[in-house]
């Protein structure tokens, strides 16, 4: 069984009494994973990540990172984490290299490490430009370079694709996958862009109104998606088809099209077989819900 780098045991938080932000969160981020932390705006993602970094104070000690209680071992834990919370935190009047130098001093790493991380994020060409002249994509890259300076085992990234154009999003996605695969970083990345998480995550946690609604591997989530699939059929004889499938919750959506809910892949095959055996021609058989977004919406609206 893969060890969990992050484990929260019933994490709860509120800024004011009677205004609960997080409810009983049990998050487990396995070592070596890319854990996509999904949720709509205001769900509690950033608050959770701020708690994991010790930026918010809580009375009990429900957070354990690298097997250590965060509250008791804050400095030891933070030495092994690279983080980016909300927008990139950069000193605009300093160059890329100088920004890295500020944190290099804090992390006491080798001088050459600055050039290594600039190379990893592809910013060598802009190293001596002031950070305030960078595009948002470059700022995000520099912020990620800062998180990599001390070669941490764990990266905590809060919406790193926020505000990026499509090219920037693709570049960021490739960068994160590369960091996970080549540099063996465990990455906890929050996002409300579900399609993005689907493309990079190995594990997913879905939070809504401060509660964790789902946690598991991407495969498990996709399995859940299959369980909730609605098939769309196009047939030559709609009346016969409706008669044959009358025990199912069939809905006619067009002159020759029907929608039928199915529970698994076997049900899909059986359905097709039944129609064909009864001389009904099937021109189209495809899932009406095709992406994680639908599953996500189903989960949060359940």
């Amino acid at each position, binding site marked *: 069984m893969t060890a969990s780098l992050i484990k929260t045991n019933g994490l709860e938080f509120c800024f004011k009494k009677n205004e609960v932000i997080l409810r009983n969160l049990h998050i487990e981020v396995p070592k070596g994973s890319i854990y996509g932390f999904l949720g709509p705006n205001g769900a509690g993602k950033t608050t959770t990540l701020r708690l994991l970094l010790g930026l918010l104070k809580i009375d009990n000690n429900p957070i354990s990172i690298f097997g250590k209680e965060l509250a008791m071992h804050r400095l030891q834990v933070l030495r092994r984490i690279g983080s980016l919370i909300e927008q990139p935190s950069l000193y605009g*009047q300093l160059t890329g290299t100088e920004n890295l130098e500020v944190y290099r001093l804090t992390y006491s790493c080798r001088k050459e490490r600055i050039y290594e991380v600039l190379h990893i994020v592809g910013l060598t060409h802009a190293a001596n430009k002031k950070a305030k002249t960078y595009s948002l994509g470059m700022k995000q890259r520099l912020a990620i370079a800062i998180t990599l300076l001390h070669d941490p085992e764990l990266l905590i990234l809060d919406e790193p694709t926020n505000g990026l154009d499509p090219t920037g999003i693709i570049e960021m996605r490739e960068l994160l996958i590369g960091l996970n695969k080549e540099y063996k970083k465990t990455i906890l990345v929050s996002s409300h862009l579900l399609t993005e998480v689907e493309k990079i995550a190995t594990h997913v946690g879905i939070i809504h109104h401060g509660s964790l609604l789902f946690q598991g591997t991407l495969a498990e989530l996709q399995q859940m998606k299959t369980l909730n699939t609605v098939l769309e059929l196009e047939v030559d004889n709609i009346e016969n088809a409706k008669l044959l499938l009358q025990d199912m919750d069939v809905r006619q959506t067009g002159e020759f099209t029907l929608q039928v809910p199915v529970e698994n892949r076997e049900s899909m095959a059986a359905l097709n077989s039944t129609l064909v055996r009864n001389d009904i021609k099937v021109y189209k058989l495809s899932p009406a819900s095709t992406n994680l977004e639908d599953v996500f919406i189903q989960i949060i609206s359940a």
Partner: protein
Amino acid sequence: MASLILNTSAEFLKVRRTNAIWLTFAGALFIPSVNFLKLLSRPDIFLSQTKADPWAFMLNDNWAPAASLFLPMYVILVISLVVQIEYTNNTWKQVYASPRSYADIYFSKFFIMSSLVLLWIVLLTFFIVASGYVIEMVNSDYEFASHQIPWKQFSTIAIKMFASTLGMAAIQYWLTLLFKSFVTPIGIGMALLTGGFMIRQWEHISYYPYIYSLLVYFTNPGLEEGTSDKALLNSVVGSIIVLGLGFYHLCIRKEKG
């Protein structure tokens, strides 16, 4: 300890090319520049006044406005500017998410602010001396070069003035951490400074940090003897107390960054 030194170096790097640096140089240059123009434009008035002891004249003519107004104003502004580097760049959270103790974060920043105040005082001293020599180069009737510079007097005033700002600096620092706004702590500081002028003759004025530089520099007619020394001591002791309280408050704050 090594990490405190490294992080303080990092804090120095952060102020590079900021308004805090510009203000330090321009602020220190302002009073000597005005006096420079004054002496050169009206030698008929100032030649006789500088004749006996030109450096004593220069020292007082520059330090009197500095001690009463410019130094405390500079302290209020520079502390806000240094803390605003983190607010405007949205970097506080990154500072607190890095492996630094709260003491390191809190005290290294105060060390930077104090260093800038000290730099301002050193620069002011340098500009006073430099302006004396340049005045003589432009108008040879002035006699600065032939008189010995009273370095001991300059140094004593510099040290006393620095110590007199510590109390208000500690209060201003706490205010800048309490208020995200750039204007609020400056407004409070300026109000307290001007309020101090208005109650200057109050018998307990030595417990009012915003006017310590004035009390320490000038003789204080109408106030009890030893008010200057008491103000100086209160500034140092007060800064330790306020810094301690500010640090405690930082540690118990629910939200950091």
